[in-house]
């Protein structure tokens, strides 16, 4: 029964030409448009040193870890130089920011970094990431110092921040767009997942009613339908990668295996969203499609598809939203692979995405297990 349903779900999906278009062709069209729109912007862009200011007050002077970290990241002779840092008063910093001479300034308040930026953008994002990392490492050092000061000698007392161009060529703003495109492609899998589940539901179609009265356990039907949908979606994803790499010459950086891993998981998360919408939302198919498109597009918007600024704004003001936003988790994981030398952030994103996927699929199966309706 499992493979029987798998085979026929696959047939049904592949003969649904609108679904095939959205899954296979739409991402390629979007990739082409991105390429046309951004290729000129990209030419000659490299990771630039960011102009920043630090409020040089008593608190700054007392915080050695931050001082050392900024000194290191601003060293002119360093190939990894990230910042051109000016040490100024608050008033001067405000003026520099108003004159757009700096991307932002940092002030320490009660040991906590407070970042002010003129406008959100890639520089603001890098600045924020660097400061977060310094703060995290400072905290670790503080904790070690409290527990076992002798260990500090082994570790060294100063945090090291490594934000560098990890790509084989150069830091690409367009990459963010491609990352969100991958996220969108993954999440559009929700449409296939939803279609596969709708056909099993008695309140969605007469064929669903016929399936509902059959002696086939729902979980088997759901999992086999999901697997067929996943296969189709992976074909779509593979096409996108082949097309962007071979035709558009997109460079996904040195960790393509992990990019692919995250994309596979992202696709599953997309399907899970579709399954959840299909099984938990009591509405017609069109409304469900609308919800999936809205969730996907809004998620991609928050993750920076229409401008990286939005990602920064959400990360800064409502971080929980992006921590639960699958589009952002996919984008952020890919972004972390590109920008960070360690994989902590990447695996963090992978873990949350896995959790969301398991919860959505599990809850959907549970809710459909013995479903009966009030009316049909």
């Amino acid at each position, binding site marked *: 029964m499992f493979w029987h349903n798998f085979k026929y779900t696959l047939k049904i999906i592949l003969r649904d030409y609108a679904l095939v278009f959205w899954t296979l062709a739409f991402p390629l069209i979007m990739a082409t448009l991105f390429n046309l729109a951004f290729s000129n912007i990209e030419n000659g862009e490299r990771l630039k040193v960011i102009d920043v200011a630090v409020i040089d007050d008593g608190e700054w002077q007392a915080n050695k870890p931050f001082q050392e970290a900024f000194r290191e990241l601003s060293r002119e002779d360093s190939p990894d130089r990230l910042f051109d840092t000016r040490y100024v008063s608050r008033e001067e910093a405000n003026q520099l920011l108003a004159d757009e001479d700096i991307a932002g300034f940092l002030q320490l308040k009660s040991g906590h970094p407070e970042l002010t930026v003129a406008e959100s953008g890639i520089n603001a994002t890098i600045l924020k990431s660097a400061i977060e990392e310094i703060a995290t490492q400072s905290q670790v050092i503080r904790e070690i110092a409290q527990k076992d000061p002798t260990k500090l000698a082994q570790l060294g007392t100063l945090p090291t921040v490594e934000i560098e161009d990890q790509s084989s060529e150069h830091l690409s703003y367009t990459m963010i767009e491609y990352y969100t495109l991958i996220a969108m492609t993954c999440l559009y899998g929700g449409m296939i997942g939803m279609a596969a589940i709708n056909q099993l539901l008695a309140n969605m179609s007469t064929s669903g009613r*016929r399936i509902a*009265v*059959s002696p086939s356990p729902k979980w088997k039907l759901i999992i086999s339908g999901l697997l067929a949908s996943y296969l189709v979606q992976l074909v779509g994803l593979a096409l996108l990668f082949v097309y962007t790499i071979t035709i558009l010459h997109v460079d996904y950086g040195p960790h393509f295996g992990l990019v692919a891993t995250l994309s596979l998981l992202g696709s599953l998360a997309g399907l899970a969203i579709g399954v959840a919408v299909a099984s938990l939302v009591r509405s017609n198919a069109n409304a469900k499609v609308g919800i999936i498109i809205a969730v996907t597009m809004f998620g991609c918007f928050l993750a920076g598809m229409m401008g990286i600024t939005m990602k920064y704004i959400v990360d800064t003001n409502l971080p929980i939203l992006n921590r639960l936003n699958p589009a952002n988790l996919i984008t952020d994981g890919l972004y972390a692979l590109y920008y960070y030398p360690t994989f902590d952030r990447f695996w963090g994103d992978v873990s949350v995405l896995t959790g969301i996927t398991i919860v959505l699929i599990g809850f959907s199966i549970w809710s459909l297990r013995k479903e009966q309706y*009030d*009316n*049909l």
Partner: protein
Amino acid sequence: MKNTISVKHLTKIYQKIKAVDNLSFDVREGEILGLLGPNGSGKSTTINCILSLLKYDKGEIKIFDQPMSPDAYEIKRQIGVVFQDVAVFEELNVYDNIDFFCGLYIKDKAERAKCVEDAIKLVGLQDFRKFYPKQLSGGLLRRLNIACGIAHKPKLIFLDEPTVAVDPQSRNHILENIETLRKRGATVVYTTHYMEEAEQLCDRIIIIDKGKIIASGTPTELKKLVKNKPIKEVSGPTLNDVFLELTGKDLRD
């Protein structure tokens, strides 16, 4: 004779309206039971409750002497349903549609292939195996709908207005199919608006209105309920007369 279905005090309330009101009846093994009633009388709701598609508020439903529930898979294995609306996949051809639904009941490929072929022959779709539903006429679609519901050779078959909107030839063919199924030993629950169909096919008839059974019996017994039949009708009352007498002549939604 054993009961295939036993319904006791079935009550289904939907939005404060009793869609099914304390309904009790049995369906005997091997009979064709007609479930008649105007639109909205509760026929389909009753069938959907029996099939465990709908929740109900009160009552007990047994099929083959076992309580019916959404996960009563052994009972479901022996049931076939032909819904009023054509329930097939537009993306699958005739053979694949029947094979898909049959495969939900029968695992063995060889056995299933035989069942699918038998069903195709029964409904006369031999020349349309590779046709997709949108290439079929209304009558052929109805026959495909029936084939999908009965290919696995169920012991109990629900037919919910299977002849709606088909030409007389297709209707006649469908009615012959139902007779064939009964001869094979299946028990049939049949709903229809066509009184002559019920009279031709059914061993017993239950007439439902406003969720209640208002009459039941053999066609002959039911005819006796009409006493004021106009004299000009020399052949006596038809079931159509019984139906209108009992449920009124007003149009329903």
